[in-house]
């Protein structure tokens, strides 16, 4: 039995039911892999009728590095280094997914200090990721200034990473059994200062972009994604919450010390670009709030519980473990044969891959300008889509 294979040729044909009184013809245009609004090597094939979008076909594979396959030839500690490179704006959460997966599988208990440090860093990273997204959204919508403001304010947070971790982007800090190094002596002071600064800057963001009538026009009722569609497409993270589904792993299946802090989940009501915008801005506030609760109470203790020289051998079985990155749920399936210190198979469920497919549902019938707003509001990181 053979199934008919749909090729692109099937899709390239004039519209059967043109809803325009003009005699128009549809055409294809390639947005990417080199395009200013796709932020990387994402390629979108757009079927357009004039400026109206009929279909969006994402084409993947331009930055596929085979990270999952490479993982099969590495020990778990080595694989952590690769995970920095999948979603470079959530490097620490990526590390943490592997670390927690290994810890759960081997039955290792971590102490409070480790979990506090991990949670604080993950939240700081969420803030810096959202700051970058905020700037890039401004740039995509034609306002260049927010881009530089976002990057400027993000610097204060990456400086915190640099001080303790030594890296600004690819951290590989969270390791199975703990974290790489202990905190820098300046960490608490510096983080508090940076949070105070970020808070004041959030107010500036509201004034510069959120309240702007053009931004509101560009995002309100644009790219509406219903809650049903979002769930059906496997959309997670801020886009899912913007559609009205209050699903946040930090609340639903708390890991780290999220069950000990007080924070709220930002939820949208319409599911348009504006809701996705607002949810992220609100998440920055909530993340600041989380770190503020934790920063003064970091307990004492060891920061690495597994001896680095020791082989980590996971009992035979299939393990799944997931966490909330700045963009959605990152899951890791880990298959171990029980004999080797390397995984038999690793699969990552990356948030951007699933979120990307919502683009078509959001953008149909909109304008080209709306598509740019939609891409931006999904906050895609392309290396995470291809891995």
């Amino acid at each position, binding site marked *: 039995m053979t199934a008919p294979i749909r090729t692109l040729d099937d899709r390239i044909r004039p519209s059967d039911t043109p809803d325009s009184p003009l005699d128009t013809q549809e*055409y294809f*245009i390639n947005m990417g892999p080199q*395009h*200013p*609004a796709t932020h990387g090597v994402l390629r979108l094939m757009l079927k357009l009728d004039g*400026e109206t979008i009929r279909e969006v076909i994402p084409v993947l594979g331009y930055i596929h590095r085979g990270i999952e396959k490479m993982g099969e030839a590495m020990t778990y500690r080595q694989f952590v280094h690769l995970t920095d490179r999948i979603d470079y704006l959530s490097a620490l959460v990526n590390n943490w997914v592997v670390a927690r997966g290994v810890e759960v599988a081997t039955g290792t208990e971590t102490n409070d200090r480790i979990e506090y440090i991990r949670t604080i860093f993950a939240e700081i990273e969420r803030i810096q990721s959202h700051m970058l997204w905020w700037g890039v959204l*401004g*740039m*995509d*919508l*034609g*306002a*260049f*200034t927010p881009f*530089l*403001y976002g990057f*400027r304010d993000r610097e204060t947070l990456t400086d915190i990473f640099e001080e303790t971790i030594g890296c600004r982007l690819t951290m590989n800090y969270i390791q199975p059994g703990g974290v790489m190094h202990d905190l820098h002596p300046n960490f608490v002071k510096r983080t508090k200062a940076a949070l105070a600064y970020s808070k004041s800057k959030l107010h500036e963001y509201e004034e*510069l*972009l959120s309240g*702007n009538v*053009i*931004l509101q*026009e*560009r995002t309100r009722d644009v790219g509406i994604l219903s809650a049903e569609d979002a769930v059906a497409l496997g959309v997670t993270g801020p886009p899912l919450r913007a559609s009205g589904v209050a699903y946040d792993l930090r609340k639903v299946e708390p890991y780290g010390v999220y069950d000990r802090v007080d924070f709220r989940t930002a939820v949208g009501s319409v599911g348009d670009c504006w809701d996705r915008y607002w949810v992220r801005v609100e998440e920055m506030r909530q993340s600041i709030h989380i770190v503020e609760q934790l920063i003064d109470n970091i307990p004492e203790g060891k920061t690495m519980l597994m001896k680095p020289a020791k082989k980590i051998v996971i009992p035979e079985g299939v393990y799944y473990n997931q966490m909330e990155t700045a963009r959605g749920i990152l899951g890791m399936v880990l298959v171990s044969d029980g004999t080797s210190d390397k995984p038999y198979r690793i699969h990552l469920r990356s948030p951007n891959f699933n979120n990307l497919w919502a683009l078509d549902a959001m953008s149909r019938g909109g*304008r*080209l*300008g*709306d598509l*740019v707003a939609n891409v931006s509001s999904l906050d895609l990181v392309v290396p995470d889509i291809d891995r």
Partner: protein
Amino acid sequence: MSAAIVLLTLAERAAASLEVGIWGTAAWLAVAIVAAIGSMSLLGMALVLIERKVAARFQSRLGPMRVGPHGLFQTVADSIKLLIKEDIIPEQADRILFFLAPTFSLIATLLALVIVPVSPTLHLVDLNIGVVFFAAVSGFGVLGILLGGWSSNNKWSLLGAMRAGAQFISYELSLTLCLIVAVLFAGSLQLSEVVASQADGWWIWRGHVVTIVAFVVFIIASTAELNRPPFDLPEAESELTGGFHTEFSGLRFAFFFLAEFINMFVASALAATLFLGGWMPFQVGGWDTFNSVMAIIPGPIWFAGKVAVIIFISMWVRWTFPRLRVDQLMRLEWKFLLPIGIANVLIAAVIILSGLYFFPVGN
């Protein structure tokens, strides 16, 4: 056509004033053309540098700092770079139109530039239909952009060109309506007379609220005409990768770029001339001492100051606002600016016919 008019006018004036015969006139004309091109390039480079420095201030950074003191010669270096770049013409492009497009853009700009009255003496061509001439040549500029998008044979460019066509034709209406308001008040199409009519007070003060509305609409519509953010849809970098000039590089791109910046100057100069009194100093009726102090400042400085303020506002808007969407842009024009413009012209006509002036208007 209009180029011929300008050249003939130039030649006539030169021949009449210099009395050096036809060859002498030709020589002077050559000097004038070189001077015009030189001054235009200088103006363009200065504006680009100012734009970059202003943008840097808004974005809390320094801007160009390396070439010359405070990056003063950065745009000179950039211009040289653009001049010596490889001249790329896409294989599928329509070569003739591809060549003509940037030239048209630049010629339209040059033609608009010559009618700008900088001072009573520094006024290259004082056409008796100056305002109409401006409206005509600014419509000519869109032809370059349309041709540029069409001849590139690139879908992004074509989209940009189509956007440009729709946008410019729409906003031309509002722009012209605002020009009409100023002309109604001044009672002349000649720019020197428009300026002269504002000796007692600028039209923006004397035209009740009507001229203020006209001035604001003029600024908005001219920003759209100039294809500057938040109305930069024809090039919309993040949507169309560069719009109509995606395929242009080197000198041809420089032509478009130069045309855009000079156009900004021309539109600001027109706004200053029609509504802010051109090179006329700020005068208040009855305050003789104040008026005489103001009159000491020479006309060109008044003119430059007014233009600078308008250009600064334009840059301020550019580096603050996001871009509108195509349909929103059209809605703004057809549903808001155009009705306001038409009502404004009618009110202006009523005011002038019934003589309801705040200030005494000569004859």
